[in-house]
């Protein structure tokens, strides 16, 4: 019997905050009010909850007057930039792992195999040597053509991501603005 009583009190008490704030549906409100009228403990709980919610409302009203301090956007922007630098310019190990995970295995392995084959056969020396205009090319049109293919002659600009079978010897210029770590990542917005 006492267990039934306890359950009845507990269920009603959980609804007391809702009752105080007028958020109970009519049948439940009637039920809780009837119980509170007959139960001294729940009646005391109701009186306390009325006082307490009043204080909590007053505190909440004060909290709503508080404005965030200035400089929040500048801090966030700096964090966003740091995030982009950290995650879009990941080390080679991470870039390779990302490519493997996304099924881009061929794009990584094929150029490596080609490089190894070319290097061991000696053809690579001729091919890459010929890519330097001052080395062997004397024809002006050929120089222009090569310059179009490889406007950036830095050592780090050697092909990655291109299909070497389709374009042997093609050197893709390195674009520092181009994201490399995660091709599926959303674009970087301009702030």
């Amino acid at each position, binding site marked *: 019997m*006492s*267990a039934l*009583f*306890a359950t009845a*009190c*507990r269920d009603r*008490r*959980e*609804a*007391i*905050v*809702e009752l105080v704030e007028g*958020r109970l549906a009519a049948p439940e409100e009637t039920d809780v009010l009837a119980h509170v009228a007959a139960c*001294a*403990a729940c*009646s*005391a*709980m109701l*009186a*306390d*909850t009325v*006082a*307490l*919610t009043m*204080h*909590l*409302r*007053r*505190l*909440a*009203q*004060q*909290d*709503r*007057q*508080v*404005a*965030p*301090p200035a400089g*929040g*956007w500048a*801090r*966030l922007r700096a*964090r*966003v930039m740091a*995030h982009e630098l950290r995650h879009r310019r990941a080390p080679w190990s991470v870039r390779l792992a990302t490519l493997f995970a996304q099924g881009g295995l061929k794009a990584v392995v094929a150029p490596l195999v080609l490089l190894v084959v070319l290097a061991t056969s000696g053809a690579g020396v001729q091919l890459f040597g010929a890519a330097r205009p001052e080395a062997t090319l004397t024809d002006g049109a050929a120089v222009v053509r090569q310059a179009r293919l490889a406007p950036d002659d830095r050592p780090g600009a050697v092909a990655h991501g291109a299909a070497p079978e389709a374009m042997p010897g093609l050197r893709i210029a390195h674009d520092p603005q181009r994201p490399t770590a995660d091709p599926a*990542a*959303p*674009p970087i*917005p*301009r*702030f």
Partner: protein
Amino acid sequence: MVESSTGAADPAAWPRVDDGAAFAAFYARHEAVVYRTALAMTRDASIAEEVVTDTFLRAYVARATLDPERSPVPWLQKVAINLCVNRLRRRRLPSQPLDDVTAHAMRDRDPSRSPERMSEQREAMDALLAGIARLKPRQRAVVVLRFLHDYSLAQIAETLDEPLGTVKSRLHSAVYALREDLHADARVRDLVPAPRVGAVAGPDAEVAQ
């Protein structure tokens, strides 16, 4: 009630992923509601600032994967509350009596009140804040969403991603704990009705009867 805190007013407010200006506007629009939540949870302005920055950084990172048709506010609130809960659990934040900002707000709001009345109210708020600081972080989250943002139980359950019954129970136990704290605090005993003679001691005390 804060307009944007219920999440009903702006159902499609996630910024486009490639639009930096829209993200800045998104931040400006929702910064205050997230800051107030974080401040109410931690009662520490510098931690609240950190939480706001972390919350929006997560929004930035996740922006491409979130449903643009849904309001971002519950998502932001959930992330902010989880960050606050983690910080509260990691180190026990001191219960500050009443921060200066809130105290100024009290004075500014009601300059006609007598110094005695103001002092009484301040003590009541001190006791209440100390009681809130002693709540478990998840209980505190329910109280903040309920009283600061006026969320219904269903909205709290959705925001915290918890069953309605759990939220109901947490709200009740938080109110009960605060009630006990206020009764135990000599400064505010007069501001809260004392328990009646014969009243049971706890929410489950009837079982012992």
